[in-house]
C-alpha cells in the first residue's frame, strides 16, 4: 500500500526569472511520514509538487482524490495537518525544515482511502440525503450520527489542555493608526500606497501573499521590471508593508482588522486593529473554476495556479497539457507551459465557442474530451474561464455589487460607498499594468487627500502626518476631498464570455463536494432561493466561504429558477474575509484580576481564594467556623475592600439619595450613616449598602461588591438623563480605599489602641455614625460604626496605599485581645445569624422590595423614588412571596442553598441562605416562601437534593442571633 518513492524534485524546473525559491537553502520535511526535500521559499504544496506529489487530500463526502486547483491560500484541495495545527493551507504555508505534515481524514493512506467507496454510492448521497433517512427507528439515530461524524472533513485539534503550553503558543495584538490602509499589494495597491505615502500620508499596505506584487510576480519580463520598480518605490516612500497578512473585516468608521500570519518576533500570529482614515480596497480578482465532469481531478488547475507553479516555484505542473482559455491569463499559462517544455497538446479557445466536456482518469487527469468530440490524452488540464472581483470588504462598507453580464462578473457599485472607502485595481476593472498603476496612483493620491481632510476636520494636530514623513518639501497641502469618486474612472471590466458550466455536471463547491446536479435538485425540491439552496446543499458554507465558487453557484441557481444572475444576487460577505485563528482573535488573553492591597498578606497566611467577579479574595484561612466564633467572642478583622464606594459631593446629593433609595435621606445629619436599599423601576431590589454624610455637601456611598460598577452606572444614568440640572459630582473610589471591618465585642478596645483624633466612647461615637480620623498613623481614614456581622464593629476605609500597614497594625495591636482575620465564609455565617440579606442571593431577578422583608425601609410616603409605583402596587396586592427566617426542625440537617419548599408537587418557595450556626449549634436558613406560608410558626416542607423531605419552621424574624441588636449598640 505504499506510494512509489518519487524522484527527488523530479518536477523541478531550471531557474525561472521570477522564482521565489532560494536554491542555496535546501532542507527536508516530512509528508505522511516520509521525508521530502524543499528549497527555502517553497510552499508545502510547491515542494511536494516539485517531488511529483499530485494528491494532497481526499474530498469531504466522496473521498475523491484532490490535487492543486489554485495553488494559493484558497486552494480547496490542499488543506493539511501541520504538527498540532489542523486545516493548514498547504499551498500558502511556507515549508520549513523538519515540519511534520500529514493529509487529513484519510485511512489507511491518502492514496488508498477506504471511504472513497462513497464515490460508488454517490447517486444515493445527493445533497441533504441525511435529512431523508435515518428517521426510524429513533433509537438508531445516535449510531448513524456517529457514522456521519466519521466523515468530518477536518484536521485534529489537540485535546489535552493539561499539556497546553501557553508560553509557546503566544499571540499578540497591535493597534495601528494609518492615514491610508491599502488592502491588497498588487500593482494598483502598490501604486496607491506609493502615491499616498509620497503625498505625505502614513500608509499601511496589507498583502496576503508572502511578497507584494500580485499577478506581476508570475508575469513576463516587463511585469518583473515594473514589480522591481514598484517595490523600490514602496520602500523609498516609507510605506509599512505587511505580507502574509490579510484584512479580515471592515467595521464601522473604517475600523479594520488585519491578521498577520507570520509576524516578526515571538508571536505565532498577530491581530492588528487599525483605524484607517481612508481604506483603499485593492483586493484584485479571484480566478473562477469551471464546472464540468471531472473538474475536481488532480491535474485540473486554474491558469493562475499553473503560472504560480511555473514562475514562482519552478515546478512543472504536468507533462502534457490541454489549456481551456477564455482570456489572457489562459493564453499566458499556455505560453508558460510551452516555454518550460510541457507538451501543450491542445489549446481550447472558449472565446471561439470551443469547450471541454469532461476530464477523466484514476487518481488524476489521464484524458479530456473536447467539445468537438476529440479525446486528448494529458495529465494537466488548465482552465481560464473568468474572474470574480474580490468585493467582500466593499460589501462590508455597505456596497452591493452589480452583475455585469458582458464582463461575466459582479462589480462594485462605487457610488454607494462612503467617502472614506475607495477602490482600485482588479476589483474595479481590468487594464494593462500601466493602467492599473495609473488608476492606483490617482486613487492613492485622493485617499491621502481625504485622510488629510478628515484629520483637519477632526482637529487633529497637523504635524502628526502633515507635512509628510519624507520631508516637508515633498508634501502636498491638504485640500478638500474631490467631489467625484477617484476610483470611478480609468478601469472598466473587460468583456468576457460568461462561462460557468459545460455540457456535463461537475463540482461547484469543491470544499463541500457539492455538484451542479445537487443545486438543480435542490431547486426542484423547492429550495428555490439562493439562501435556501445554499443552506440545503451547503454550497459556499465551507472554508472558502464562496470566494472561489460564488458566481458558479449563483449562475446555476439563476438558470434553474429562470431568474437573472443579478436577481439571484451574490452572497452577503460577512467578516472574517479569511478564516482566522481563535488565538489571534484572543491575543494575549489578559484577564484582569482585582486584588486588595492586603492580598499578599492573605496568601502568606493560608487564605483559600474565592473568585468573586473581577475580585479574588479570601474565602477563609482554614477554619471559617472558628473565625466566626472568634468574632462573637473577641475581635476579628476582614478585608472588605471590594465593597463599592462612591464619593458624592454637591448640594443636591440628598435629592439623589432620596430618588434612588427607597428610604428617606433628607434628614440625615452630618456624621451619621444609614442603610439604604435601591430598587429598579420594576420595584426589583437592585442593591443595598450604607451611605454616610461626611460633610454638609459630602457623602460616601457604599454598594455591594458585585454591584459596584452597576450602581455607579445607575447613579450616572439618573443624573445624566433625568436630572442633569442637579449639582452632584460622582467619583468612584472603590479602590482608592482599602476597607477593613473590625468586628467583635473587643473591637472598640482594639480601635482605641490604633485610632487618634476620634473619641470612640459609646456616647461620642454611637451606632450608625461616621467619623474621620487617623488610624495607625494614617490620616484621612473614614470610620463607620455599623454591624453587618451583628457585633459591635467599625468599618474603616483607609487610603489604599496604607491598607496593608493598617491591617498589620490591627493584628499587632490586638494580639492579647485575640484578634484574628476572618474571611467571606465566616462573614456569611455571621450575617446569616444576624439575618442580614444578601442582594442577589436572598433576592433574585424578580424579587421586589416587599418580598425582601424591607417593609420597614420602603417609604411610600416619599413623593417619588425609583420603583415607587411598582412597590405601591406590590403592597396593595399583598400576595407576594416573602423572605423569612427558617429553622429546620432537625437542627442537624443543613439543607443546601437552592433546595425547594414544596406542598405536594407544588413548589412554594426555596432556601436562599443556609448554614450551621456556630453560635446556636443548629441549622439556620433564610428562604423565599409563598405569601400563605409567611406567618411565623408555619411549618414548611423542604425537599433535599436526594429527594428526602424535611420540615422547617418560619421564624419570628430573619435574625436568629441577637434580634434586638443589643450587641451592635454597646
Amino acid at each position, binding site marked *: 500500500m505504499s506510494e512509489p518513492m518519487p524522484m527527488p524534485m523530479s518536477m523541478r524546473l531550471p531557474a525561472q526569472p521570477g522564482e521565489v525559491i532560494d536554491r542555496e537553502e535546501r532542507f527536508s520535511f516530512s509528508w505522511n511520514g516520509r521525508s521530502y526535500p524543499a528549497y527555502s521559499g517553497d510552499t508545502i504544496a510547491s515542494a511536494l509538487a516539485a517531488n511529483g506529489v499530485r494528491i494532497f487530500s481526499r474530498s469531504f463526502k466522496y473521498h475523491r482524490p484532490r490535487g492543486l486547483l489554485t495553488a494559493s491560500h484558497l486552494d480547496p484541495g490542499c488543506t493539511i495537518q501541520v504538527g*498540532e*495545527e*489542523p486545516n493548514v493551507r498547504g499551498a500558502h504555508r511556507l515549508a520549513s525544515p523538519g515540519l511534520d505534515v500529514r493529509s487529513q*481524514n484519510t485511512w489507511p493512506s491518502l492514496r488508498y482511502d477506504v471511504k472513497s467507496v462513497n464515490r460508488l454510492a454517490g*447517486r*444515493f448521497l*445527493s445533497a441533504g*440525503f441525511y*435529512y*431523508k*433517512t435515518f*428517521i426510524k427507528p*429513533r433509537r438508531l*439515530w*445516535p449510531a448513524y450520527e456517529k457514522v456521519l461524524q466519521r466523515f468530518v*472533513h477536518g484536521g*485534529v*485539534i*489537540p*485535546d489535552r489542555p*493539561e*499539556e*497546553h503550553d*501557553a508560553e509557546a503558543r503566544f499571540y499578540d495584538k497591535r493597534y495601528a493608526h494609518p492615514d491610508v490602509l491599502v488592502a491588497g499589494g498588487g500593482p494598483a495597491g502598490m501604486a496607491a500606497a506609493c502615491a499616498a505615502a509620497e503625498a505625505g500620508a502614513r500608509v499601511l499596505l496589507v498583502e496576503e501573499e508572502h511578497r507584494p506584487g500580485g499577478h506581476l510576480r508570475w508575469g513576463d519580463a516587463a511585469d518583473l521590471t515594473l514589480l522591481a520598480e514598484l517595490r523600490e518605490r514602496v520602500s523609498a516612500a516609507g510605506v509599512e508593508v505587511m505580507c502574509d497578512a490579510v484584512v479580515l473585516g471592515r*467595521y464601522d468608521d473604517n475600523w479594520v*482588522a488585519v491578521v498577520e500570519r507570520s509576524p516578526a518576533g515571538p508571536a505565532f500570529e498577530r491581530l492588528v*486593529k487599525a483605524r484607517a482614515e481612508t481604506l483603499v480596497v485593492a483586493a484584485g480578482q479571484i480566478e473562477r473554476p469551471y464546472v464540468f465532469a471531472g473538474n475536481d481531478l488532480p491535474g485540473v488547475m486554474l491558469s493562475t495556479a499553473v503560472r504560480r507553479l511555473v514562475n514562482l516555484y519552478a515546478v512543472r505542473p504536468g507533462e502534457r497539457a490541454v489549456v481551456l482559455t477564455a482570456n489572457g491569463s489562459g493564453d499566458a499559462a499556455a505560453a508558460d507551459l510551452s516555454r518550460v517544455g510541457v507538451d501543450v497538446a491542445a489549446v481550447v479557445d472558449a472565446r471561439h465557442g470551443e469547450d471541454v466536456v469532461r476530464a477523466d482518469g484514476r487518481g488524476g487527469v489521464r484524458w479530456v474530451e473536447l467539445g468537438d468530440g476529440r479525446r486528448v490524452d494529458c495529465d494537466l488540464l488548465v482552465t481560464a474561464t473568468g474572474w470574480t472581483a474580490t468585493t467582500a470588504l466593499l460589501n462590508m462598507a455597505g456596497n452591493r455589487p452589480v452583475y455585469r453580464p458582458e464582463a461575466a462578473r459582479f462589480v462594485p457599485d462605487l457610488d454607494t460607498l462612503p467617502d472614506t472607502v475607495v477602490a482600485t485595481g482588479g476589483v474595479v476593472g481590468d487594464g494593462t499594468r500601466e493602467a492599473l498603476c495609473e488608476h492606483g496612483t490617482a486613487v492613492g493620491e485622493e485617499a491621502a487627500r481625504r485622510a488629510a481632510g478628515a484629520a483637519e476636520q477632526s482637529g487633529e494636530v497637523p504635524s502628526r502626518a502633515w507635512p509628510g514623513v519624507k520631508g516637508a518639501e515633498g508634501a502636498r497641502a491638504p485640500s478638500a476631498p474631490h467631489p467625484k469618486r477617484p476610483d470611478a474612472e480609468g478601469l472598466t471590466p473587460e468583456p468576457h464570455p460568461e462561462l460557468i458550466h459545460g455540457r456535463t455536471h461537475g463540482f461547484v463547491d469543491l470544499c463541500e463536494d457539492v455538484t451542479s446536479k445537487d443545486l438543480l*435538485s435542490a431547486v*426542484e*425540491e*423547492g429550495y428555490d*432561493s439562493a*439562501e435556501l439552496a445554499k443552506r440545503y446543499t451547503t454550497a459556499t458554507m465551507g*472554508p472558502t*466561504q464562496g470566494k472561489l465558487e460564488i458566481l458558479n453557484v449563483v449562475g446555476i441557481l439563476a438558470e434553474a429558477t429562470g431568474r437573472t444572475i443579478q436577481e439571484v444576487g451574490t452572497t452577503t460577505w*460577512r*467578516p*472574517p474575509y479569511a*478564516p*482566522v485563528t*481563535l*488565538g489571534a*482573535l*484572543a*491575543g494575549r*488573553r489578559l*484577564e484582569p484580576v482585582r486584588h486588595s492591597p492586603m492580598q499578599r498578606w492573605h496568601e502568606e497566611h493560608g487564605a483559600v481564594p474565592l*473568585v468573586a467577579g473581577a475580585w479574588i479574595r479570601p474565602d477563609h484561612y482554614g477554619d471559617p467556623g472558628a473565625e466566626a466564633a472568634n468574632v462573637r467572642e473577641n475581635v476579628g478583622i476582614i478585608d472588605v475592600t471590594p465593597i463599592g464606594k462612591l464619593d458624592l459631593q454637591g448640594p443636591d446629593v440628598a435629592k439623589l439619595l432620596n430618588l434612588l433609595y427607597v428610604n428617606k435621606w433628607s434628614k440625615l445629619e452630618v456624621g451619621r450613616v444609614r442603610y439604604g436599599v435601591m430598587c429598579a423601576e420594576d420595584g426589583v431590589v437592585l442593591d443595598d449598602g450604607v451611605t454616610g454624610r461626611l460633610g454638609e455637601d459630602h457623602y460616601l456611598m457604599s454598594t455591594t461588591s*458585585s454591584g459596584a460598577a452597576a450602581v455607579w452606572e445607575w447613579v450616572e444614568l439618573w443624573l445624566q438623563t433625568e436630572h442633569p440640572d442637579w449639582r452632584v459630582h460622582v467619583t468612584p473610589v472603590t479602590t482608592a480605599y482599602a476597607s477593613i471591618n473590625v468586628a467583635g465585642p473587643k473591637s472598640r478596645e482594639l480601635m482605641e489602641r490604633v485610632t487618634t483624633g476620634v473619641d470612640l466612647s459609646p456616647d461620642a461615637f454611637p451606632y450608625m455614625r461616621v467619623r474621620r480620623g487617623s488610624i495607625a498613623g494614617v490620616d484621612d481614614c473614614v470610620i463607620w460604626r455599623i454591624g453587618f456581622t451583628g457585633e459591635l464593629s467599625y468599618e474603616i476605609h483607609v487610603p489604599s496605599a496604607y491598607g496593608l500597614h493598617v491591617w498589620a497594625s490591627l493584628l499587632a495591636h490586638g494580639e492579647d485581645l485575640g484578634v484574628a482575620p476572618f474571611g467571606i465564609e465566616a462573614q456569611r455565617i455571621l450575617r446569616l445569624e444576624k439575618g442580614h440579606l444578601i442582594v442577589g*442571593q436572598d433576592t*433574585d431577578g*424578580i424579587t421586589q422590595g416587599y418580598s425582601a422583608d424591607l417593609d420597614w425601609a420602603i417609604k411610600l410616603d416619599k413623593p417619588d423614588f425609583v420603583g415607587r409605583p411598582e412597590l405601591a402596587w406590590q403592597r396593595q*396586592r399583598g400576595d407576594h412571596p416573602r423572605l423569612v427566617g427558617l429553622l429546620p426542625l432537625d437542627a442537624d440537617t443543613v439543607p443546601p442553598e*437552592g*433546595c425547594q419548599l*414544596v406542598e405536594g408537587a407544588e*413548589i412554594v418557595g*426555596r432556601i436562599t441562605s443556609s448554614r450551621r450556626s456556630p453560635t446556636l449549634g443548629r441549622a439556620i436558613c433564610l428562604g423565599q416562601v409563598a405569601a400563605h406560608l409567611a406567618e411565623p410558626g408555619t411549618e414548611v416542607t423542604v425537599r433535599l*437534593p436526594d*429527594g428526602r423531605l424535611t420540615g422547617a419552621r418560619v421564624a419570628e424574624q430573619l435574625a436568629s442571633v441577637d434580634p434586638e441588636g443589643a450587641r451592635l449598640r454597646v
Partner: protein
Amino acid sequence: MGSSRSRFSAYSLVRQGVSGRPWPRMWRRHELESSYDAVVVGGGLHGLATAYYLAAEQGWSRIAVLERSYLGGGGSGRNTAIIRSNYLTPDGVRFYDHSLRLYADLSAALNFNVMFSQRGHLTLAHTDASLRTMRWRAEVNKIEGVDSEVIGPDRVKELAPSLDTSDRVRYPILGALYHPPGGIVRHDAAVWGYARAADAHGVHLHQETEVVGIETSGGRVTGVRTNRGLISTPVVANCTAGWATTIADMVDLPMPIQTFPLQAAVTEPVRPFLHTVVVSGSLHVYVSQTDRGELVFGASVDPFASYSTRGSLEFVEGLATHVLELMPSLDRLRLLRQWAGLCDMTPDFAPIIGRTPVEGFFVDVGWGTYGFKAGPAAGQALAECIAGRKVPALIEAFALERFETGKLVGEKGAAAVGH
C-alpha cells in the same frame, strides 16, 4: 402527511438514486388568495410550526404563512440550535420540557430528519454564586421530572476532556449543571420539516410576501395588507422575532419588548472532540460541535438595543478569549464566519404568547434567546389557543396581561447566558 407526497426513508433514497427521478417538491408555491381562515405572519420555525399544528392537530384549513424573505431566514436560521429544558421556573421547565419531547419525536412526526443529537448539556459554574443558582435549577428540574444534576469538576472533565478543569485558570470550573436530555438540532431541518409537513396539510406558504398593515374593525382583526395584495381573515398570528413590535404596532398594540442583536460564530471543521454542549454563564459563551465538525459559538445579547445584524470585531475577540479560557488548546482553530440575529427581550425574559386585547390577533413573540428551543411547543400551544376557547395551561403563565397583573415569570434569574 398527505398521501400525494412520497415519504422519505432509506428505501426512498435508494429508489430515487436508482431511478434518477427528481424528488417531489418540499413545498409548493401558490397564488395569494383573497381570504384565509388564519394568517400566520412569519415563515420561521414558530410560524411554520403554528400553521402545521393548526392544520394537523386542530383540523383547520385555509391557512396562509406570510414570509417577507425566505423560509427560516430570521432567528430560525441564525440561532445556535441548542435544545434544553433545564430552566429555572416551574412554568419554564414544563414548557421547554414539552418542547424538547416534541423535538425528540419530530423526525418521525414530520418524516424529515431534524438530526436531534441528544448529547447532554453542561452549564459551567465558575463562582459559588452560579453554583448556588445551578443547584436551584437542578432542584426545580428534579421536581418537574427533568433530568438535571449538579456535578463536580472531575465529572465535567470526563464529559468534556478539552475543558481546562485545573485551578491555574482565571475562572476555575467549580462544577456544572449537567442536563443529559439537552443537545442540538439541525435548525434549518426543523424549519424545512415543518414547512414540508404544513404544505402537505394544505397550508399555503408565501415567501417574499411582506405584511404592510393589519385591518381591524370594532376591535377585531379583519384582514392583512401585504405587498402582494389584501387578504381578509379573522385570525392573524404574529410569529415574528425582531419585528414583533412592528407587527403589533399595526393593531396599535404596544409590546413590552426591546430588540437586541445576538451574535454567533462558527469555526472550520475539525475531527469530533466535543460531545456535549458546553455553556459558561460567567464567560458569556456557549459551544457545541456540529456533526460537520464545526464549532458553533454564541454569547449573550449585545449590550444595546439595535436592529443591526452585522457582526462586530469586539464580539469575536471577546468570544475567542473566553473560549480559550475554557479550552486553551483550541488556539489554532480558525473562525470561519460570524453573524447576528435579533432577539426580542421582555422584562422578565419569558415570552408573550396567546391572546391579545385585539380579538383575532394572537402573538407568539418575545422569546429572547430561547426561541429555537421553544418552537414546537409554542406552535402547538398557539394553534390550540387559536382553535380553542381556552388558553392551554402550558402557556397560561406567558400571557400578555401578566404585565398588568404583575405576575412576572422570573426566568431572568437564570438568564445571564442560559443556552
